[in-house]
């Protein structure tokens, strides 16, 4: 399958970077066609500009900066997000990729006079999130699991009606053992290799 991996972490020596490498290894072993968007390495600018806000319904060809990112999003069948969960959600950098790339003409259309947007990414059949949490699953539940809901609801409704979501998360990472982290990485690689 065509798989787009969007990776977001500022540090190349992070656990998230290791998770990305294992995800890529698994995907390649599974024979998938893979593209990678590494937001930090590519110097992605996460702040939606005043012009973009004013012209948020303008066609995407008026926003050349997002062109390659939008093309990848419209190309893939599986979207894999690899990021650390900070303050219960996606890092600002990854949120910026959503704010700026999932725009009208790419992810949705808003017909005149309507309040509800119409999805435009039927090509995406699965969204996978690979993430780590500093806090426990209980604390995340108390916090409302915003990051998870953004993936499984806000983004998912713009994809295929039958889109499935896969949540692969390591909780309480700050107090996890080396064996637990290694087991998580092995799970990431296996899940990506077995992706259907």
């Amino acid at each position, binding site marked *: 399958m065509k798989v787009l991996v969007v990776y977001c*972490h*500022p*540090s*190349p020596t*992070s656990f998230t970077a290791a998770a990305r490498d294992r995800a890529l290894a698994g995907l390649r072993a599974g024979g998938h066609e893979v593209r990678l968007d590494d937001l*930090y390495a590519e110097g992605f600018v*996460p*702040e*939606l*500009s*005043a012009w*973009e*806000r*004013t012209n948020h319904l303008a066609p995407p060809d008026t926003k050349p900066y997002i062109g390659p990112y939008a093309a990848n999003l419209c190309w893939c069948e599986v979207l894999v997000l690899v990021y650390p969960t*900070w*303050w*219960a*959600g*996606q*890092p*600002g*950098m990854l*949120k*910026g990729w*959503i*704010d700026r790339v*999932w725009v009208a003409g790419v992810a949705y259309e*808003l017909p005149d*006079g309507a*309040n*509800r*947007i119409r999805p435009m990414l039927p090509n995406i059949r699965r969204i996978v999130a690979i993430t780590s949490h*500093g*806090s426990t699953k209980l*604390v995340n539940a*108390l*916090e*409302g*699991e*915003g*990051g998870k*809901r*953004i993936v499984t*609801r*806000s*983004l998912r*409704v713009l994809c295929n009606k039958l889109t499935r979501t896969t949540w692969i998360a390591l909780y309480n990472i*700050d*107090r996890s053992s080396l064996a637990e982290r290694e087991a998580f990485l092995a799970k990431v690689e296996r899940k990506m290799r077995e992706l259907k």
Partner: protein
Amino acid sequence: MQVVVVVAHPNSDSFGHALAERAVSAAARAGHEVHLLDLYALGVSAAMTAEEHHAYHGDTPILDPVIAAHAALVRAADTLVFVYPTWWSTVPAILKGWLERTMAPGVAFVFDANGKVRPGLTNIRCIVGISTYGSPRAYVKLVNDNGRRTLTRALRLNTGLRTRRSWLGLYAIDTATAAQRAAFLDRVDRKMGSL
């Protein structure tokens, strides 16, 4: 009281800025000391840098002097007010990044001897959210209001137990009438005037 108003909207002539200005003027009129942090105007970066991430668990987790000044205001504040448009069910990237970079260890929380997170924002008595939504209220409830959850739950967990939360939302803004917008501004005025 010390009130910090954080506004995240790229357009200085936006309804979001009108809301922030109204919030500031109402709070000032009520005798509070108000600080307005306009994240776009200040050129705040939404992306935590590798250097900041490296410093996060050290003695000086905040490297940017602008962010350090904001952190000092947060430490001295009684009320935090967030004004933003909800995009994809949560806060704009610039506000998310500001939270990550400002609400660092030693500001919003501390790690205890066991590495557990303990609240650091015990000075905060009230968190107020003021947001506009493209979607109708029922749809926002359906997909979940994750920005609201981030501020009234995740951030709230790091304040004292008695911290109050207030939420003011204008839904389906694309089809809201001028009267509805004016009424919402008045609501913000009343709320901020009676903190």
